[in-house]
């Protein structure tokens, strides 16, 4: 089976009248099927841009992006990935169930099959009783869960997530991370996950891609050996291996120089 994502020699520049910004330079990355990879780095390091290239929401200036051995565009048209953004982006005029079923409806899945899949996903995200509510009746965390269910609607083998928990409070955030780990264990999908938070990246990932800004580059890829997705449970947050992972990523982020304690521990 081919890799979920293969990024080869990708450059991305944004040209405006005044100047050219190099968003990504010489980026190579491979994400294996079923693997959880986080992209982390300071603002402007191009992590969201990289995700958008994989999603074919933008095109690279040079280099190639392949998803399951196809071009990113073909993969998008074939619905090989599901996507979730920092804003849940639910359609306010649709109920929770209708939001989850949106991609199925757009791709002309029969109503009965749609309904069955909707039930499954509502159960998966634990919002079974909220199917008929509207997004504005839900908390931020619930909305984000609905967005994740919507991304999973067509059972993609790849999930692209751009800081999906970035707008949530700390406690909701940790609960959502645990939930996402469980969902990944259930679905076996590969995930490319953009985040600002070191503990979040370490808790969820098989590998953490550390990026640096101006120009956006991959500085280091830190392997995290905390076991499969089914072992990523609350207890892990107290584990010595978890802290070791956090330290390793933090050192990579700061270019190997030792840093003071009490760095962003979100």
């Amino acid at each position, binding site marked *: 089976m081919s890799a979920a994502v293969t990024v080869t020699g990708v450059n991305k520049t944004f040209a405006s009248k005044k100047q050219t910004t190099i968003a990504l330079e010489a980026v190579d990355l491979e994400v294996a099927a079923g693997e959880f990879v986080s992209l982390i780095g300071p603002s402007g390091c191009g992590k969201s841009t990289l995700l958008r290239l994989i999603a074919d929401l933008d095109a690279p200036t040079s280099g190639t992006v392949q998803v399951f051995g196809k071009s990113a565009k073909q993969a*998008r048209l074939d619905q090989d990935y599901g996507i979730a953004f920092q804003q849940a982006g639910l359609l306010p005029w649709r109920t929770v169930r209708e939001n989850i079923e949106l991609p199925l409806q757009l*791709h002309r899945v029969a109503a009965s099959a749609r309904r069955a899949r909707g039930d499954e996903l509502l159960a998966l995200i634990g919002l079974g009783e909220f199917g008929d509510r509207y997004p504005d009746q839900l908390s931020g965390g619930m909305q984000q869960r609905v967005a994740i269910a919507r991304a999973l609607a067509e059972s993609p083998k790849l999930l692209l997530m751009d800081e999906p928990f970035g707008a949530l409070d700390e406690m909701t955030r940790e609960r959502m991370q645990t939930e996402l780990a469980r969902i990944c264990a259930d679905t076996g999908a590969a995930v490319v996950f953009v985040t600002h938070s070191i503990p979040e990246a370490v808790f969820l990932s098989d590998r953490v891609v550390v990026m640096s800004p101006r120009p956006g580059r991959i500085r280091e890829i830190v392997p995290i050996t905390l076991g499969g997705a089914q072992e990523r449970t609350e207890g892990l947050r107290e584990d010595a291996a978890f802290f070791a992972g956090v330290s390793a990523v933090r050192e990579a982020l700061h270019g190997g120089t030792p840093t003071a304690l009490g760095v962003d521990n979100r």
Partner: protein
Amino acid sequence: MTARRIVLGVAGVILLAVAWELYKALAPADGLVIGGLTVLPRTSDAAMPHLWTMLGRALEPVSGAAGSPLLVVATLQAAAFSLGVAGVGLLVGVVVGVGLAMLMQRFRTAESALLPWIVLSQTVPLIAIAPLVKRWGATLHTESFRWEDWMSVAVIASYLAFFPVAIGALRGFEAPDAAHRDLFRSYGVGWWRSFVRLRLPASVPYLVPALRLAAANAVVGTVVAEVSIGLNGGIGRMIIVFGQSGSADPAKQWSPIAGAVLIGLVAAGVIVLLGTVLRRYRRAEVTA
């Protein structure tokens, strides 16, 4: 809440009636004239009939001729006729307005090319286009089709109605934010399905107020165009004709004026009803 609003609405009407009668009772009969200029209107029975005189007159026949219908019946018939014409005008206006907005949303160049003309179109006075519309319509005669005057009136009503719809719909179609557009792009669906599932529903909060304006414009356009075109049977013509018999029968002309107000209320009510039907699309957008 609803009961409170109804009470306030009724209170507003009563207040207006009381103000009318109070002014009539208290102000001088020849109005207030300062230096040859009438600052306040005359309160004579010819200028300001009592409300009950107007009501009483409405319940009498239109004229002394045999078989003449009651004034209120004739007024309601004329109002219904004008409302129908205004409805056709509004419908055409909505189709044209939404169509133009779709075109402008789809093609950026169309927006640059059309929008200035759309804005400019509203600066042409209605009186100027009425004869043009009538003349152009007259060239459309065929064996089976005859251009009627009421069609000219409907076209003019639509000319006034399409404008707020085009502007409101365009804003609405462009309301979805970047995240929603990205999402639909990720689904790989074309413009049309994105339009139906995203842009159109997202435009409802902009469309409903635009329709309210359009409905009012269509009614005003119809009443005025009836006069300009010289169309009989509607409320506009009735106001003019009865107005000419003003001094002899001053209460008479107030019936068609009330009829015009009634048309406006019905039109506004229809839009309110539509807004209620579409309320699920008007839920406030909430960001996580």
